[in-house]
Structure formats: C-alpha cells, structure tokens
C-alpha cells in the first residue's frame, strides 16, 4: 500500500533530503514545550513538534503501597490516542499502540531512577503518593514517543503536590512542595528506513519505517531504557549508530526541560 511512498522517500534520501526538506537528524519546527498549561492538574506540559501536539497532565493520588514495597509510592502512565487527534484513531479502550506508548514513557522515567519512590511514601504499608501521568493527543502528526516522554518529564518537574490533611487530599489547594528529581531522562526515537536513519518522522515517514529504536538517556550519556519497534530487524552496527544519534539529539531536547 505504501510502496510508492516508500520508494519516493528512499529516492529523496539518496539526494540527502526528506519529504519536507529536513536533514536526517533534524526535528521539525516549531519544537516547543510549555508547562503549567492545565490548572486542574498537579503538573502539566504541552509539547508541539511540527504539527504534532500533545498535552500531558499529572494527578496525584494517595493509595496503599504494594505489599512487596510497603515503603514506596509509584507512578502510573496512561496514553489516550484520542480520535479527535487522528482520523484513524477510534473510540474505546487503549489498543496495543497506546499501551506501548504509555509503557515506553513509563520505563524511560522509572528506570532512570529519577524519582525516589521511597520519598513518595506517607505512611509505611498504608499510604503513599501515586503520580498518575496521562498523555492526551491533540494532533498526531508523527513521533508521539519523543513528544510524550518530553512532556511527561516536564510535567513531573513542575508539578506541585496538593494539600493532604486528615487522610484527605484537597485538590483545590496546591502546596509549594515539588517532586524531587535526581536526574532528567530524555527519550529520542531513531528510525530506520532503507539504509538511512532519521529522527522525528512525520506521519508519512512513520508509515513506511522498517524499524525504530527509542533510547532514553541521562545527561552523562548513561542509557536508561530502550525499545525496538517496527517489522524489520536491526544489526548491531545499526544499533550503535542509532544510539549515537539518540545521545546527540538528546542534548538538544534536554535544553527544553529547564
């Protein structure tokens, strides 16, 4: 179905360009990050990359800790691929695509150990904060992975806990208490089409990729989570190159999360 489009894209690659004239490792513009965009959320961020537009909100809840980790709070990530944002998205419970997106964002944050879950504990074995991070798409024009990971981190960084007194959360009143973050993981997804590697695919490019690799990394270039996607395999040389590109581009995205 996409054979012609794929051939066309590969032909453009041979002359070192892309459908919209970008370089292989260039993000679309505007590339913007706004925080505190939703006043009903404890933390929120909106990321626009080209025509891709997403909002991430964090709600804080108090729950009983898991029995095997009685002194820890946790995070929970959900993604809603809203039918408002793409003609191909349908109403209903999250499908595979949305669940993969949510889980990849979740692991990028969780595995970086940027949040000390023990500090989210209120009373051991009884009460702990759970930060529920929801990703909502306004317009899906490709590369939701990088946009969502960036917005989620920014929302966490700027969130403020609500007032908690006498076993009750008062959502109307935010405290000045922020979430302590040990580090800031940033995710970059590198895509392979033919023998070329690109970042930030638009919807058309995304429809013809052979493979993708999402790499979450820290400022010292430590890798903290990865996910390979796409129908075709990668060689270890491919992976080396893709990780290099991801680390390089992460520096650029990192500047946005001030």
């Amino acid at each position, binding site marked *: 179905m996409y054979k012609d489009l794929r051939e066309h894209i590969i032909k453009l690659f041979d002359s070192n360009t892309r459908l919209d004239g970008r370089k292989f490792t260039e993000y679309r513009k505007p590339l913007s990050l706004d925080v505190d*965009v*939703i*006043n*009903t*959320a404890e933390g*929120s961020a909106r990321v626009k990359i080209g*025509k891709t*537009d997403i*909002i991430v*909100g*964090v*709600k804080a*809840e108090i729950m009983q800790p898991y029995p095997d980790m009685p002194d820890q709070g946790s995070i929970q990530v*959900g993604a*809603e691929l*809203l*039918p*408002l*944002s*793409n*003609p191909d998205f349908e*109403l209903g*419970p*999250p499908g595979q695509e949305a669940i993969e997106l949510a889980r990849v964002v979740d692991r990028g944050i969780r595995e970086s150990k940027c949040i000390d879950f023990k500090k989210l504990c209120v009373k051991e074995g009884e009460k702990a904060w759970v930060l*529920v991070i*929801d990703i*909502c798409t*306004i*317009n*899906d*024009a490709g590369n939701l992975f990088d946009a969502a990971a960036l917005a989620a981190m920014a929302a966490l960084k700027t969130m403020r806990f609500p007032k908690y007194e006498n076993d009750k*959360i008062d*959502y*109307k009143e935010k405290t000045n208490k922020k979430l302590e973050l040990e580090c800031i993981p940033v995710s970059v997804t590198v895509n392979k089409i033919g023998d070329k590697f690109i970042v930030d695919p638009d919807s058309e490019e995304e429809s013809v990729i052979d493979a993708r690799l999402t790499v979450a990394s820290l400022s010292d270039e430590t890798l903290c989570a990865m996910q390979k996607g796409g129908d075709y395999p990668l060689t270890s040389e491919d992976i080396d190159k893709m990780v290099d590109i991801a680390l390089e581009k992460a520096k650029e995205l990192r500047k946005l999360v001030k």
Partner: protein
Amino acid sequence: MVYKERLGKRKFDETREIEAKVGVIPNADGSAYFKIGNTWAYAAVYGPRNLHPKFLQDPSKGILRCNYNMMPFSSSGERVRPGGSRRSKEISLVTQKALLPVLDLEEYPNSVVDVFIELPQTEAGSRCAGICAASMALADAGLAMRDLVAAVSVGRVDDKLVVDLDYKEESYEDGPVADIPVAMMPNHDKITLLQMDGLISKEQLKKAIEMGKKVCKDIYEIQKKALKDKYKTNANK
C-alpha cells in the same frame, strides 16, 4: 438570604472571559476550541466519511455522531477515569441533539459526521463549551448548515438570575440554586438544548431563558469572529 454580589465579581448577566479559535487541529476536517473561564473545550470534526459497519448507514441521509470526553486530568477534584461514564454518554447524546437541527445531513447519504469533544480543563459549563466548540468545528469543516449553535448555562442562585454559573455558584449552599444549560440557534431564535437541575419558578425560568438567549447572541458573534479570523490569518501569510 440575598445573593447580593456574584462570588466571581461578575455582573449577573455577564459570562466569564471567552476565547475562541478555529482550525486548531490540522488532522481534522474542521476544529475549534472554546474557552470560557477555566473551562476549555476542543472539538474536531471528521467527515462526512464512510460509515462502517454498513448496516448503520442510512441511504436517505448522513448520521451525526458526537462524543464528549473529559481528559483524565481535567477535573479540579480526583482524576477522571478514562473510557467514559454514564454522565459523558448522556452529554454526548444531548450534544448530538443540540447540533442536529442546524445540519442538513440529507446532503450526505450513507455517511457519518463524527464530532469529538475533548476537555483538557473544566470548571462548570463544560457541555455548553463543548457545543460552542463543536458548532464552530462543523462550520470550519464546511458542512451545509442552517445556523450556528451557541450555548451557555443560565440559572438561579438564591434570589438572583445569573448566566454562566461557575463551580462556586453551582455548589452555593446558602440558598436554592438552579442550573439550566441552554443551546440555541441564534438566527432562528430556537432552542436546541435545555436541561435543568434545581428549583425554580415558572416565571423565573421564563426570564432565565430570555437572559440565555441574549447571551447566546453575544457568543454567536464571538464564534462568527473566530471563523472569520481563520481566513484573515491565512490571507496574511
């Protein structure tokens, strides 16, 4: 008790601040947002497009589907669980009924027009904001329409009639409250949505609806301006 001054310092017939914009979702055939105070509604229209499964098709006219949804972080209280509730299903239905009279669906046999309303942030009046946004999005999609639909909540707080109740007024405890969401076709002077919760007399209801009509005409002007502005900005590019 007498409700002397509105809690939000507004005049009794004054809405919260309104902001409206059209063409905000590039993927959609038509789109808009409508902000009123802290309540913020996005609407996207897809269609007329093919309707599947086929047995749902109507060869005499197209069908209109509406879906109202609050984003999980949009409530000032607890997180809203995704996936829809009885409340959101009912609002989807009354929204569809509010918009149907302005559409000429006979133009689109066997097709569907999908309207998706999403609320990133809410504080009272969200169904009315959703309807305002949806009607602008339908016009933006270039559908055959007889009119726009403007909506606002009116009602009573204690002894006073008010428009566009905010959260504090909805939950006013020192006297009776009535909340009446109204949608209308401003050029036809007809009402397409009417709900009421609370206590009110026949006479007060009559007055409240008249107030609503007046405000809907103002909202209509804002909607029209937003639609025109889209083409203005395009011309300047």
